């Protein structure tokens, strides 16, 4: 287990890597389209993505425009979701509020997936002391509450959108790395890897060109699961004041700005943003779960 390059029989012929990912594509799509969970999840995602892209052009009010003579108006024909403490239209803000979360969360997921995949490939492929050292470091990171780690880093660096993307991404990287490492450990002893080594291919080539295509399914599933968590984490950070900055209609930020008036009975200032956040997370999770099942079949 301490070898850095797997040993292989010298006489082993060139063995092509199994083309599992390519061959199963059409089947997976078929399974997904027959899954009610996937369809509901995809519909929710499609709705919020449309809002994120086009809502500013079709919402009834400017989501940033205040109207101090109409603050905290309950839901009505004029304001379907009521108005907030500054008289801003909650309906318009909820729809436009999808934009920030759907920009930051996928970017953070990409950062986390890329970093985690790289770490997982290295630790799983090389094994030995590389795996031991990096593995312990990852365990230390995973033992800390993720939101606290993210908060500490954001306090040190100061909140800004790029910082949030990088911090949330890096906080998720160990989780992705753990999944990828497990998948690599399964693959590294297979014949096609040994054959590539015998051919004299370098470690980088073997990891990226041989192993990576074959462990894409678990990575994709992990990424979709992480996207759900990223949405939740970023909403939490915004709620705590370390995420998106005002006057953005971001959902987490809006809940933070208005939860103080909840005791006064002004439920509409918080409830719709909460439902929006929950629905997006549910949508992502439905898609992730369906994807996982389809890939497992």
């Amino acid at each position: 287990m301490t070898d850095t390059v797997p040993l292989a029989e010298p006489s082993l012929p060139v063995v092509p890597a199994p083309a599992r990912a390519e061959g199963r594509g059409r089947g997976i799509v078929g399974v997904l389209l027959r899954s009610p969970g996937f369809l509901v999840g995809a519909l929710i995602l499609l709705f919020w993505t449309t809002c994120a892209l086009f809502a500013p052009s079709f919402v009834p009010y400017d989501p940033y425009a205040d109207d101090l003579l109409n603050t905290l108006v309950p839901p009505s024909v004029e304001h379907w979701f009521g108005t907030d403490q500054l008289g801003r239209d909650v309906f318009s803000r909820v729809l436009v509020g999808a934009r920030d979360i759907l920009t930051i969360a996928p970017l953070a997921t990409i950062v986390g997936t890329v970093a985690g995949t790289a770490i997982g490939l290295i630790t799983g492929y090389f094994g030995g002391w590389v795996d031991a050292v990096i593995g312990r470091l990852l365990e230390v990171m995973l033992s800390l509450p993720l939101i606290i780690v993210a908060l500490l880093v954001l306090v040190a660096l100061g909140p800004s959108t790029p910082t949030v993307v990088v911090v949330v991404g890096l906080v998720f990287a160990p989780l992705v790395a753990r999944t990828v490492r497990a998948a690599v450990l399964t693959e590294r002893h297979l014949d096609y890897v040994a054959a590539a080594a015998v051919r004299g291919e370098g470690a980088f080539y073997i990891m990226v060109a041989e192993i990576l295509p074959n462990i894409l399914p678990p990575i994709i599933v992990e990424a979709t699961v992480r996207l759900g968590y990223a949405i939740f984490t970023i909403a939490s950070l915004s709620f705590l004041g370390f995420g998106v900055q005002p006057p953005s209609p971001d959902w987490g930020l809006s809940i933070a700005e208005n939860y103080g008036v909840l005791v006064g009975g002004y439920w509409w200032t918080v409830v719709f943003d909460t439902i929006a956040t929950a629905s997006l997370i549910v949508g992502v999770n439905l898609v992730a779960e369906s994807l996982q099942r389809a890939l497992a079949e």
Partner: protein
Amino acid sequence: MPKLFKSLNQWREGRGGLENEVIDQFLLGHLDRRAFLRHGSRVGLSMAVMAGVLQATGFAPIGRAQAQGKPGGTIRLAQITPSGAIEPVSVADQGGLLPLQQAGDFLVMDGPDLVLRPMLATSWKPNADGSVWTFTLRSGVKFHDGRTMTADDVVASIDRLADPANGSNALSAFKGVLSKGGTTKVDDLTVRFTLDAPNGNFPYYVSSDNYNAIILPADYKGDFEKTFNGTGPFKMVSYTPKVGASFVRNPDYWAGPALVEKLELSFYADQQPQVLALLGGQIDLIQQVVVQGSQSLFDNPAVKILRLKSNAHRQIHMKNTGPFADKRVRQAMALTLDRPAIVKGLFRGMADLGNDSPFAPVFPSTDTSVPQRVKDIPKAKELMAAAGMSSGFEVTLTTMQLQELPAIASLIRNAAAEIGVKVTLKLEDVGAYYGDAVPGKSDWLDSQFGITDYGHRGTPNVFLAAPLLSTGTWNSAEFKNPEYDKLVASYIAALDPAAQKAQAGAIQKLLLDETPVIFPYFYDYMTATSATLQGVEGTAMGQMFLHKAGFA
């Protein structure tokens, strides 16, 4: 009429020139009843004399018709968590000043109506130019440890605060007013304050307004949290930092024992749990509620809201650099705000309009004839064009995550957009905003455009000095104007009400023209109690005087 003159002469006899000047100003109609009481108490007119003058002239007598409850019971008070130790020299926040004031007393109490009342001092008098003030102390006052309070304790307590070596929070008030060594003992019950410069408002500096100035034993060692040894109405039984404190009434209190037997303070980090606890009957009193988040209390018959006019406010500073170096740009920014809408929308009308100077309507010296600045976008655009800024500019507005500050920041962003100014918001937690409170290490002092909170004071002196004088230590706007500095010195030295008002008017007009800082509003201070609790008397500083409070 001869009877009236006879009666008035009776009250004028034996009064000094300054005291009679205040009486004359009242008789001439230059001061209303409220202003007469404030100015009278400031120059040392006793309550008996002021009551006599009011009665002789047919005005309503002095009297706070505070209902008092039955003896016994426990008041459970919710307050914001103190940010640091309960240490009289260093306390600098609303959370810390309340426990301090339950166990300790001031020489003078600045009441909810800004009328000064005797506490540990029974009377005070200035010399002719207001540079020396002499206070007579109450006799027979005992500390909680049984020792009797004397002039030595007062001299030590005030000197401790005025000594720069102690780094006292009160230095922000005492700087340029009272130095170490300026407080001297005349006899066991008389103390003399020799000031750095004449000051017509000095009694406020040793009143509850200067919340650090409770009188402690002369041999105080800096260990207040161990014993809470003061002369106050409640004696500490237990204190747990960040959690709360318990007190029992002081049977030897100089004003008589408190009505209730016990007082329990619970510390909270936020307003919402306090509101819920009051509604749920777990507490009887909330030190402060702000409109945002406490709406459910306002129409609830089980809750009483005690509302005090205050001069607590927010200062929006514009540093004298970049686009803000031109006063026309600063004026234009100030003209974008719809202040009546802010007061109505954000505060439900429970605030006064600000007119870009610290002179709040609540101060008796405020010149109310100075025209109120109103929203005027065409004029603002004209000013921007005249300053060569018709296409606008970009600026970052820095402030804190505190009460309505994020909301007002968003409003400023929208308002500035109307004249082409693109404002980016930067919101920080309170600690990050204030930083080390020195230039170079504080966003409060370093930011070009920022919003800072200022609590209530009995006089505008600190507001006029620290954030606006050329030498001011809180001068975020880097405003340096020799004419302003001279006017402030004259205002602070002025003793009689007419002179104070004249100087105030000149300062108001100058600040309105220069606009280094926007003062958008002065919000009311509100306390919430259960309907059965009576006799609570608070100040807009956050103090709660409870020795006459009880349950119905």
